[in-house]
């Protein structure tokens, strides 16, 4: 029965007499992208940390399959000035890789030219790409991405999400993705969990977007600038399984 990489059962975290998040259950399997969305302070990062076993749940159980390789892209990392660290050293942080593997990972996220650059000279977006490259280089079974596109420019954002999808196909890993914007990640996601201290609603993206709980949190009217993206990404499948292109690129 247990073929999940990671499974949370009714998990909650209690800090200072307050539940940061409670009653979260989720499962991530191989080759699947599960997305967590929710407003600030809704417990997305806390949930991610439970799935990585950095935080022990005060209630419920978290099971991680034994012996799997895990990569984590945290929401925030600050590198102290006193640390001399190049991009290549950062990729090698947890596990040492061959230079060719590092080059491949950096090319996938588009920063191959920065391999010997000091990490503190990178811009916010470049650093985010470096975090991603490091995570890919490990060829993980389970990948947790906590808001992986913050600070990345808009075209880069779409490209990075496409990259994430390619990674899943290539190394067939399971991904837990935290995003503030469902519309951008919609077409890449298999399952969505909408959090606000507890699970508001969950299901396939097309279903969740119609749930009253979701609409209450994120509003029904989509920002016109985002509508463009929804239009671009939310494609329909024809009965034979091919993608209906008629509505796109217009």
């Amino acid at each position, binding site marked *: 029965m247990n073929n999940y990489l990671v499974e949370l059962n009714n998990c909650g975290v209690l800090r200072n007499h307050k539940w940061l998040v409670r009653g979260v259950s989720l499962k991530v399997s191989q080759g699947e992208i599960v997305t967590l969305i929710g407003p600030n302070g809704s417990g997305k990062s806390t949930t991610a940390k439970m799935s990585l076993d950095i935080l022990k749940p005060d209630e419920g159980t978290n099971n991680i399959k034994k012996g799997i390789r895990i990569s984590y892209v945290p929401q925030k990392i600050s590198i102290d000035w*006193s640390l001399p660290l190049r991009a290549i050293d950062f990729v090698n*942080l*947890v596990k040492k890789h061959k230079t060719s593997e590092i080059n491949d990972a950096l090319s996938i996220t588009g920063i191959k030219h920065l391999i010997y650059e000091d990490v503190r000279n990178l811009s916010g977006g470049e650093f985010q790409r470096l975090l991603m490259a490091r995570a890919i280089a490990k060829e993980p079974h389970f990948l947790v991405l906590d808001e992986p596109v913050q600070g990345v420019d808009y075209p880069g954002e779409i490209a990075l999400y496409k990259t994430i999808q390619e990674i899943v196909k290539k190394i067939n890993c399971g991904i837990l993705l935290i995003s503030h914007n469902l519309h951008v990640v919609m077409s890449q996601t298999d399952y969505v969990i909408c959090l606000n201290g507890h699970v508001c609603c969950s299901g396939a993206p097309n279903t969740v977007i119609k749930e009253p709980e979701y609409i209450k949190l994120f509003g029904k009217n989509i920002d016109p600038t985002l509508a463009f993206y929804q239009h671009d990404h939310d494609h329909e499948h024809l009965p034979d399984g091919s993608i209906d292109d008629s509505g796109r690129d217009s």
Partner: protein
Amino acid sequence: MFDDFIVRAFAAGIGLALVTGPLGCFIVWRRLSYFGDTIAHSALLGVTIAYAMNFNLIIAVFVVSCLLAISLLFLQRRTSLPDDALLGLLAHSVLAIGLVLLGILSFIRIDLMGLLFGDILSVNFTDVLFVWIGGGVVLTTLILIWRPLFAGTVNLELAKAEGLNPDLATTIFTLLIASVIAISIKIVGILLITGLLIIPAAASRNLSSTPIQMAIISSIIGVCSVVIGLQTSMIWNTSTGPTILVITLGVFIITLLPLKKLLISKKKIRIVR
């Protein structure tokens, strides 16, 4: 060869500088610069206990340092106070305890100057052995725990999430510092050991672009300072420990000059050609 006190001083100083280089880098990276001082403050308590109970001095200082290090780790995990506040809290309270105890046990006389500055010229052959064997164990251990320790220094949660054990590495690292300080306090004094931990690492930061480079250069700077400092102190007849530190300070000031830029620009010109 080891009959000569100068040779023994060189051997002890060089051995110590080799170890304090890489250890000092981690102290600087983890913002624990005040840690050496804190442990040093606890040394008075260790020395008092050693005299009161007629116990081996190095072991007493080591035990007290370890207890202090463990309390620091405990406080770090239990409170949300920043490290420098915790270190200040521990340093001064442990010094106060030491002084109170010393007042109660009024029959004890401690040579405070000796404790502060040590005397590298009076080290005997056993001391040298202690430094080299102890130092060797410390360096080997540091190399073994390098990856989890370093990854945890960069980002604790990332290291934990990806299956390393940074907490264990941090505990071992803290004990390593406690033991180096305990070994060297009698030999070179508090001032020299804490200085040797911080200043070469700080100077090395100005010259290096990778962590391993910084650790190695830090050792080299430490060794050079010991060699030059010892010779200078003999020529000018100055006290040895402080002279060595003045030399490391001199090296630090030199590293502030734009040497690295000069080197890099030369390299670039070569590539262009």
